[in-house]
C-alpha cells in the first residue's frame, strides 16, 4: 500500500470517524452518563489522533489530543459529561473536519479558541476543580435542610448569607412541603430552597457552606451554564432572599426552573400569546361552574365536623378565587385601545362644525373586560358627539365668555373598587336647566312649576325622546341618544351620572363593572326566597326596628344621617305572603347620588355570584337582572339595582308631590 493510497484510506476512515463521533456526541447530549457512549467516543477520538499523526496531519492530531484528553477524564470518572462539553466538542469536530479538508490552511487561531472552549467546559465538569475554572460559573443549588435543623441551631439565613457572599445569587423558597397548620410543628423546617448562584469560587466552596448538615440533607449542586446572569442580580436576590426568609414566595419560579431546566431569572416579559376570544369565554364559563361547585363544597364543609374537609374547602376556595381573578385579568384590555378611535372622530367633528377641539386622555392604561370595552364604543361615541355639538360653544361664544378659543374635551378612565369609571368631560356652556325644565314640562314629565332637585332635573335628559337642542344637526339632537346610552349602560350592569355647571362644563361618568360574568353579591332572604344584591351597589346595612317599621308604614322613608332615604319593602314588592321577620334589615344600595333602602328579612352573607341570564320568557321582568345557583343547588334571583333605584326615586317623587 503506497502512502498516497494510505492517505486516501485515512480520509475515508476519518469521515466515518467524524460521523461516529458526531452521532455519539448527539446521543450523549441526551444520556450524559452513558458509559458505553463515552467509551466509544473516546476510542474514536483516540483513533483519529493516532491515524492523523501517522498520515501527516500533525495539527489535527494535536488538536484532537485535547478532546481525547477531555473524554479520558470523563471515562476515568474525574469529570462528568455536560451538555456544555458536548457542544464544545461538537464545535471542535467541525474544526477537525476543516483541518482534514484544508490541510494547507493555517488553523492555529481557531484551534486555540475552540480548545479554550473545551478546556473551560471540562474545567466546569470537574467536581470541585475550581482552580482550573476561568471566570464565573452559574450553579443551581437546591437544598432541603433536615427537619430538625432549626432545633439544632442551624440558621438557614446564615447559610443563605454565606452563599450570597460567594457571588450574586437569586434565592427562591418553596413552601409546598409545609404541612397543614394542624400538623405543623413550628420547630421543624420544611422549606426547600433553590439558589441560582454565580460565583468564581469552586464547587467545594458551595459544599463548604453546608458542611455541618450535608450528610443529613438533600442537596444538589449543578452547573447550569457558563455565563453570569445578564442582569446584576444583587438587588433582586436581596428581595428574593427576604421573601424566602419570610416564607411568602410563590412556587412558580421553582416549577419554571425545573421544567425549563434553565435559570429562573430568565426575563419573559413581552412575550404574549394570541388566544381566540371564544376560548376565553369558555374558560370564564368553566371558572363560573367551578365557583358554583366550590360554594357547594363550602356549604358542605361548613356543616361538617371534618377538619380536613374544611381545610381542603378553604384551600379550594382560595384557589378558585385566584383562578377567577387570573381569568378575569386575561380578558382585560386597556381602555386606551378604545380611546384612540375618538381622536379621529373628534378631528372629523371639529372640522364639520367649525369648532377647535383639544382632546386629551387620562388613564388609558386602565383595564376593562374586552366585551365591555366593545359595548362601550357606541355610548362613548354618543357622548363625545354630544359634548362636541351641544357642550362646547362656538369659538366666538367662547371668546366672548373669556374662555380660550379651543374647546377642551377629556376622556378619562380609572378604577374604583370593582368598577371602572369612564368619563367624558368638556369645558363648554353646561346644561341649561331652564331649557331642560321647559322641555320636561312640555313632555309631561314634570308638573309645571313642580319643585325638583337639581340632579333629578338633570336626569330628565335621559328620558326617551328628550332633547333640548334648538335645531337638529347632523351629529346629535334628534332625540335618540342619551336614553339609549343609559339603557346600554344598564345592560352592562353599569350606570351613568352627570354633573354640569352652567358656563363651566359638563361631565358624564359611566360606571361599569370590571366583568360581566361573575360578581360579588350580598345574599339576602325575603320571605322564603333568596336574592342576591350586587355588592358593589351596597352602601350599608342597618336594622329596621319593629317600632320604626310600624311608624313608617305608608311613608317608607328612613332618616339616614340627616337625609331621607326611601325604602322598598321587598316582601311587599314580591308578594311573599309571609309575616315579616322580627328583625328586618335594610340594605342601602346606591349608584352615584341615588340611594334606596331595601327591606329584607335576613342578610345571609356575601356570595360569589355567577350570573346566569334569565330565559327569554322572563327577560322583561323588571327588578331582576339575572339568576344564580347557590351552593345547595337552589336558584337565587339577582336584584336589578338600577330598576330598584328608579322605583325608589319614583316613590320619593310621589311623596314630594303629595307634599
Amino acid at each position, binding site marked *: 500500500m503506497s502512502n498516497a493510497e494510505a492517505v486516501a484510506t485515512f480520509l475515508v476512515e476519518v469521515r466515518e470517524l467524524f460521523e461516529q463521533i458526531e452521532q455519539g456526541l448527539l446521543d450523549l447530549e441526551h444520556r450524559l452518563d452513558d458509559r458505553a457512549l463515552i467509551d466509544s467516543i473516546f476510542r474514536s477520538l483516540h483513533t483519529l489522533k493516532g491515524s492523523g499523526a501517522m498520515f501527516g496531519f500533525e495539527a489535527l492530531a494535536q488538536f484532537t489530543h485535547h478532546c481525547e484528553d477531555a473524554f479520558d477524564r470523563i471515562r476515568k470518572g474525574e469529570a462528568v459529561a455536560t451538555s456544555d462539553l458536548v457542544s464544545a466538542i461538537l464545535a471542535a469536530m467541525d474544526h477537525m473536519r476543516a483541518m482534514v479538508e484544508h490541510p494547507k490552511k493555517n488553523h492555529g487561531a481557531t484551534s486555540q479558541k475552540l480548545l479554550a472552549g473545551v478546556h473551560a467546559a471540562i474545567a466546569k465538569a470537574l467536581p470541585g476543580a475550581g482552580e482550573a475554572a476561568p471566570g464565573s460559573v452559574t450553579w443551581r443549588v437546591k437544598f432541603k435542610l433536615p427537619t430538625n435543623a432549626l432545633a439544632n441551631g442551624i*440558621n438557614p439565613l446564615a*447559610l443563605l448569607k454565606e452563599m450570597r457572599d460567594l457571588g450574586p445569587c437569586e434565592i427562591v423558597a418553596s413552601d409546598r412541603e409545609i404541612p397543614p397548620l394542624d400538623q405543623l410543628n413550628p420547630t421543624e423546617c420544611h422549606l426547600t430552597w433553590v439558589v441560582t448562584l454565580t460565583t468564581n469560587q469552586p464547587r467545594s466552596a458551595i459544599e463548604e457552606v453546608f458542611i455541618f448538615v450535608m450528610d443529613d440533607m438533600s442537596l444538589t449542586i449543578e452547573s447550569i451554564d457558563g455565563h453570569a446572569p445578564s442582569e446584576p442580580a444583587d438587588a433582586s436576590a436581596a428581595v428574593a432572599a427576604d421573601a424566602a426568609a419570610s416564607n411568602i414566595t410563590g412556587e412558580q419560579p421553582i416549577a419554571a426552573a425545573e421544567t425549563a431546566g434553565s435559570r429562573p431569572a430568565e426575563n419573559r416579559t413581552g412575550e404574549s400569546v394570541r388566544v381566540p376570544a371564544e376560548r376565553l369565554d369558555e374558560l370564564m364559563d368553566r371558572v363560573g361552574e367551578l365557583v358554583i361547585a366550590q360554594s357547594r363544597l363550602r356549604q358542605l364543609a361548613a356543616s361538617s365536623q371534618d377538619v380536613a374537609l374544611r381545610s381542603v374547602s378553604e384551600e379550594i376556595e382560595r384557589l378558585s378565587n385566584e383562578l377567577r381573578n387570573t381569568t378575569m385579568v386575561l380578558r382585560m384590555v386597556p381602555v386606551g385601545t378604545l380611546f384612540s378611535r375618538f381622536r379621529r372622530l373628534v378631528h372629523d367633528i371639529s372640522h364639520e362644525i367649525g369648532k377647535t377641539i383639544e382632546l386629551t386622555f387620562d388613564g388609558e392604561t386602565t383595564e376593562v373586560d374586552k366585551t365591555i370595552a366593545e359595548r362601550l364604543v357606541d355610548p362613548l361615541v354618543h357622548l363625545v358627539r354630544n359634548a362636541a355639538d351641544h357642550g362646547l360653544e362656538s369659538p366666538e361664544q367662547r371668546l366672548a365668555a373669556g374662555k380660550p378659543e379651543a374647546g377642551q374635551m377629556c376622556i378619562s378612565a380609572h378604577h374604583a373598587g370593582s368598577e371602572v369609571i369612564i368619563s367624558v368631560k368638556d369645558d363648554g356652556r353646561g346644561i341649561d336647566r331652564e331649557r331642560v325644565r321647559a322641555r320636561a314640562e312640555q313632555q309631561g314629565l314634570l308638573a309645571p312649576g313642580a319643585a325638583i332637585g337639581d340632579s333629578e332635573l338633570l336626569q330628565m335628559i335621559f328620558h326617551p325622546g328628550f332633547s333640548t337642542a334648538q335645531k337638529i344637526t347632523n351629529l346629535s339632537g334628534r332625540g335618540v341618544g342619551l336614553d339609549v346610552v343609559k339603557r346600554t349602560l344598564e345592560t352592562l350592569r353599569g350606570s351613568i351620572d352627570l354633573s354640569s355647571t352652567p358656563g363651566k362644563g359638563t361631565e358624564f361618568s359611566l360606571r361599569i363593572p370590571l366583568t360581566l360574568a361573575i360578581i360579588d353579591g350580598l345574599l339576602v332572604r325575603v320571605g322564603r326566597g333568596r336574592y342576591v344584591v350586587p355588592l358593589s351597589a351596597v352602601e350599608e346595612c342597618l336594622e329596621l326596628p319593629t317600632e320604626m317599621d310600624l311608624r313608617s308604614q305608608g311613608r317608607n322613608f328612613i332618616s339616614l344621617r340627616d337625609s331621607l332615604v326611601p325604602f322598598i319593602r321587598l316582601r311587599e314588592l314580591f308578594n311573599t305572603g309571609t309575616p315579616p321577620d322580627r328583625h328586618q334589615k335594610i340594605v342601602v344600595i346606591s349608584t352615584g347620588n341615588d340611594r334606596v333602602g331595601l327591606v329584607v328579612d335576613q342578610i345571609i352573607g356575601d356570595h360569589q355570584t355567577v350570573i346566569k341570564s334569565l330565559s327569554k320568557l322572563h327577560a322583561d321582568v323588571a327588578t331582576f337582572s339575572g339568576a344564580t345557583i347557590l351552593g345547595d343547588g337552589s336558584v337565587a334571583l339577582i336584584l336589578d339595582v338600577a330598576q330598584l333605584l328608579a322605583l325608589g326615586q319614583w316613590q320619593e317623587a310621589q311623596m314630594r308631590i303629595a307634599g
Partner: protein
Amino acid sequence: MSGSILAIDDSSSIRVAVKTALSSAGFAVTEAANGADGIAKAKANHFDLIVTDLNMPIMDGLTMIEELRKSPAHMGVPIIFLTTESDAGLKQRAKAAGATGWLTKPFDPAQIVKIVKKVLGQ
C-alpha cells in the same frame, strides 16, 4: 457583630484557647468546666452559641446537648462541639443529639472564629 458564647471544656488550657480566640474577635465568653456546669450556666443566662467538648467528667458533652435540646429555651441555640479527626462515629452521635456543627482539634484561633461566625451568620 458579636455575641455571647458559653465555652465548656474540662481542660482549662482549651478553655483559655477558646476564650482568647473568641474574645479577641469581639465575643463575650463565659466558661464552664463540664456538662452539668454548662447546663446550669446556660439556664442562668442566654448565650448566642455554645462551644463544648464531648469527653468530660460529671456530665459528658453528648448528654448535655441532649438535655439542652429538651428545653424549648435552648432549642435552636447553635452548639459546636470539639472533636478529633478520628471520631467519625462520635460526630454522627453528637449531631443526632442535636449539635449544630463541629470543630476538629487541634484548631487555631482563626478557625474557631470562622466557624462561630459561620454558624451565627456573621
